[in-house]
C-alpha cells in the first residue's frame, strides 16, 4: 500500500475535510448532521473490516456480529442504569473484542475459504442469540433506549440529546478510531500483517506465529466494529438484531470493495458512495440488495481495486 501522507496537497485536503466535518452541523440543516453521522459510523465499521481484508487478506462475513455486540452491550448497560458514557462505550468495545477473540480463535485455524464460511456461521450465531434470547435482548424488537447518559467531561456535562453534539461526539470517536488504525498499519505489526497477507508461509518460516497474528488482527477489527456498533446504538437510541444479520455484514464488505481495499481511506470513501447509492435506490424501490449485488458484480470483475483504488493507481502513473 503506497504512502501518500507525505504529499502536502493531501495533508491540506485532509485539514479542510476535517474542518468541514467539524463545522458542518453549524451551517447545514440538521438533516445533514444525521446523514453525516451515520456515514461516519459506517466508515469506521468499514475501515475496521478492511483491517482484515485489505491488510490481512482475510474476508470475514461476520463482522456485523461484533457490531451488534457493541450495540447491545451499550443498550443493556444503559438500561441497567450505568451513568458513565465513557465506561459504557469502553465496555461495548471490549465485549466485542472479546467475542472476536473467542470466535477468531476458531476461525483462524483455517484459511480463506473456510474462514469466510466460518465467520458467516458464527456471525449468524450471534444474530440468532440476539433474535431469540428475548429476555436478554428483547428479541426481534430489540432494545429501545429512552434516555442516553450525558457525556461527563471535567467540569461540565454534555448531553447528547442535541443532534449536533451527538454528531460531534461521533465525529470525535470515529476520527480517534481511524487515527488508531492509521498508527496500526504503519507500525511494525502493520508490516507483519501485510506480510501475512502476501506470503504467510514465508512469514511462518521467519518466525511468526501466523495464527496469532491473524487472531490479533481479528480481535482488533472486532473491537472496532463493536465501537461502531456502540456509536450506532447511541445514534439510533436502540439496538436491534437486524444489526447482526449477515446482510448487515455485507455493508462493510460492499463499502470496502466499492471504495477500494488497497487504499487506507478506501472503505471510508466507499461508505459515502454506498450511502448515496442507498438513498438513490431506496427512493425508487424497496429491493435494493439486488442493485447492490448488480453493482458489485462488475466492480469485482472489472474494478477490483474499487473507485478510490482505481483513481489512485491512475494518478500514480
Amino acid at each position, binding site marked *: 500500500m503506497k504512502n501518500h501522507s507525505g504529499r502536502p496537497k493531501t495533508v491540506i485536503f485532509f485539514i479542510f475535510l476535517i474542518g468541514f466535518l467539524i463545522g458542518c452541523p453549524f451551517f447545514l440543516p440538521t438533516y445533514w448532521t444525521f446523514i453525516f453521522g451515520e456515514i461516519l459510523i459506517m466508515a469506521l465499521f468499514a475501515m475496521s473490516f478492511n483491517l482484515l481484508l485489505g491488510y490481512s487478506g482475510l474476508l470475514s462475513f461476520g463482522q456485523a456480529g461484533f457490531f451488534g455486540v457493541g450495540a447491545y452491550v451499550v443498550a443493556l448497560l444503559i438500561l441497567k442504569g450505568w451513568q458513565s458514557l465513557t465506561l459504557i462505550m469502553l465496555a461495548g468495545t471490549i465485549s466485542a473484542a472479546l467475542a472476536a477473540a473467542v470466535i477468531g480463535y476458531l476461525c483462524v485455524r483455517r484459511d*480463506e475459504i473456510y474462514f469466510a464460511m466460518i465467520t458467516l456461521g458464527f456471525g449468524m450465531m450471534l444474530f440468532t442469540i440476539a433474535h431469540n434470547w428475548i429476555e436478554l435482548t428483547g428479541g426481534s424488537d430489540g432494545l429501545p433506549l429512552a434516555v442516553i447518559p450525558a457525556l461527563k467531561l471535567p467540569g461540565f456535562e454534555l448531553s447528547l440529546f442535541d443532534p449536533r453534539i451527538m454528531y460531534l461526539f461521533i465525529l470525535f470517536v470515529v476520527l480517534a478510531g481511524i487515527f488508531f488504525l492509521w498508527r496500526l498499519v504503519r507500525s511494525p505489526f502493520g508490516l507483519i500483517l501485510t506480510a501475512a497477507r502476501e506470503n504467510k508461509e514465508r512469514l511462518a518460516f521467519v518466525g511468526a506465529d501466523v495464527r496469532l497474528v491473524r487472531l490479533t488482527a481479528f480481535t482488533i477489527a472486532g473491537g472496532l466494529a463493536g465501537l461502531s456498533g456502540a456509536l450506532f446504538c447511541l445514534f439510533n437510541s436502540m439496538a436491534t438484531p437486524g444489526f447482526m444479520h449477515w446482510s448487515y455484514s455485507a455493508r462493510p464488505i460492499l463499502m470496502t470493495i466499492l471504495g477500494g481495499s488497497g487504499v487506507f481511506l478506501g472503505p471510508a470513501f466507499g461508505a459515502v458512495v454506498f450511502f448515496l447509492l442507498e438513498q438513490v435506490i431506496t427512493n425508487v424501490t424497496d*429491493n435494493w440488495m439486488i442493485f447492490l449485488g448488480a453493482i*458489485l458484480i462488475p466492480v469485482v470483475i472489472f474494478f477490483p481495486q474499487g473507485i478510490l483504488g482505481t483513481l489512485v493507481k491512475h494518478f500514480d502513473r
Partner: protein
Amino acid sequence: MESLVTNLLNGLSWGMLLFLISVGLTTVFGVLGILNFAHGSFFMLGAYLCMQVMHVVPSFWLGILIGPLAVALLGIVIEKFLLRRVYDRDVSFQLLLTFAILLVLDDAVRIIWGAGYHVVDAPKILAGTIPLFSHSYPVYRIFLIIIGPLIGIALWSFFHFTRWGRIIRAAAVDREMAEGIGIRVPLLFTAVFAFGSWLAALGGALAAPHQSVAPSMGESIIIESFIVVVIGGMGSFPGAFVGALLLGLLESFGTVFAGRAQMALPYILLALVLLIRPRGFFGREA
C-alpha cells in the same frame, strides 16, 4: 418412544435434504475450487420454480423435472459469463462474486414472488400420513429418507464407476494434468457447476412440500450447508453425508432437550469440530 422415532425420522429427512445441497456445494468446490455462496439461492430457486410450474400444470413430478433443469441452465450462464472471469484471481474476489450473485438472486426471488411464504403440496402418492405407533407420520418425509440415500448412491457410483465421473475427479485433483491429457477443462467446469446447481435446485424442489417456500430459504440453508461441509470435510462425499445426517439429527433432537437454545447447536458442533479436528471428519490435510 414415539417421539424418539419421530425425531429420528425428522432428523433423517432433514439430513437427507441437507445432504443433497451440501454434496453439490462440496463437489463444485472440489472440482472448481470455488465456494459458491449463491448455492443456497439455487436451492431456493429450485423450490420456487417447482412451485411456479405447479401453478401452470399441477404436477409435482413435472415441477421437479423442470425446476432444477432451469436452475442448471442459469448455472451455466453464471459460470460461463461471470465465474470464468475470476478463476485466476484471488480467492477473496471469487467469494465476493458468488456473494454478489447471492444478493441478486435472493432479492430477485423477493421481487418476482413477493416476500411472503407459499405452500406447496406434496403429490397425491406421497401426500398424507401413515400410522406410526399411536401417531401418524407424513409419508413425504419417509420418501425423503428413502430417496436421499438413493440419490447419494447414484452420485457416488457416477463418480467412482463411470468414465466421466473419474475424469471429473481427476480434474479436481490436478487441473493441469487433466488439460494435458486432452480433457477440455473449461467445458468440464461448466458442466460440474451446472450439475451442482441442479443438485441444489433438486434439493429445493424436494424440500418445497416439506417446509414453506419463502425468500429466507436460501440464506438459512447456505449456512447449514457451510457447517455441513466444514464438519464433514471440504470436497468429501462421505463427509457431506455424515455431516448432513449429524446436523439433521442434532437439530431434530435438539428441540427436545435444548428448547430455544437449539438454534445454537449447529454452531456449537461447528466450534467443537474446529477445535478438535479442523479439517473435518473426512477432510484432507489442510
